[in-house]
């Protein structure tokens, strides 16, 4: 069961550069493709992105997830910090709010905190309560602009 004393805890802020090749790799992955030649060139060719009206190479909408995992030992670090049992962990909901654009080369600071922890009132099929942890993340660019907010809901079965 998640450690309730972690409610409100802020994870150490983390800064990373949005690598161009990582964007293409991600776009290939969510497109279930084998090669970047099969994806929209806006995700790897700056000229194509500019022709399509973007300031630079954009990131696919769910790319935000990689900011979640690229620090603090990734998922394992988060799970350990919260006292969650990995074998019971399920990601149950994800929500993004897009307030600006993210392009290749941007330097992103990720701020994440434990927003909510509660036991869902309803018991599951086996008569157990389900433990819910909600993480809220702010994605801030090199100009200090809040470009996205992420709300991730995790459950322990």
């Amino acid at each position, binding site marked *: 069961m998640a450690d309730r004393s972690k409610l409100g805890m802020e994870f150490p802020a983390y800064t990373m550069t949005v690598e161009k090749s990582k964007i293409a790799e991600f776009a*290939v992955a*969510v497109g279930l493709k084998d090669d970047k030649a099969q994806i929209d060139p806006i995700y790897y060719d700056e000229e194509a992105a500019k022709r399509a009206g973007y300031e630079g190479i954009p990131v*696919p*909408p769910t790319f935000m997830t*990689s900011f979640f995992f690229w620090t603090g030992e990734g998922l394992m670090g988060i799970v350990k910090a919260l006292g969650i049992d990995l074998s019971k962990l*399920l*990601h149950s*909901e994800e929500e993004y*709010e897009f307030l600006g654009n993210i392009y290749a080369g941007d330097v992103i600071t990720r701020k994440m905190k434990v927003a909510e922890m509660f036991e869902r009132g309803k018991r599951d099929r086996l008569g157990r309560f389900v433990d819910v942890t909600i993480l809220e993340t702010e994605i801030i660019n090199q100009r200090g602009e809040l470009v996205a907010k992420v709300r991730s809901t995790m459950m322990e079965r």
Partner: protein
Amino acid sequence: MAITYDDVKIGDTIPTYTSAPITRTHLVRYAGASGDFNPLHHDESFIKMIGMDNVIAHGILIMGIAGEAITSWIDQRNLRSFNARFLSMTEPADLNDMEHTTGRATITISGKIVKKYEENGEKRIKCDIVAKDALGSRKLAGFFIAALP
């Protein structure tokens, strides 16, 4: 041509998007691309240890497929929010039994416009989305909000 606010009305559906059958290789690729290395998605020994039958796809990969459906319909700069609730697990196709396992691993995204409104000086739409496999099992339900010209 970009879709405009006047082009769409409440009740309209967005073009249906169907994925390739998800394989374990796709899960490994997504793990590397996203950094989500939960062994639930690639390690059969972990799966046995926790009493499950098979590795499962990342919920957020299914959301990524929904993202593909959205961005193949509208320009992604128009996206204002995107929500997904994960409803059931998705097992990848087995290469040695594609005939019986392709359906459970093939994801179709559909969406329906439920609201048109103005907010922050923008013309916005809310569109409910659903992901289902080819057997009809619901994988994800959610919505996106977009500002249209």
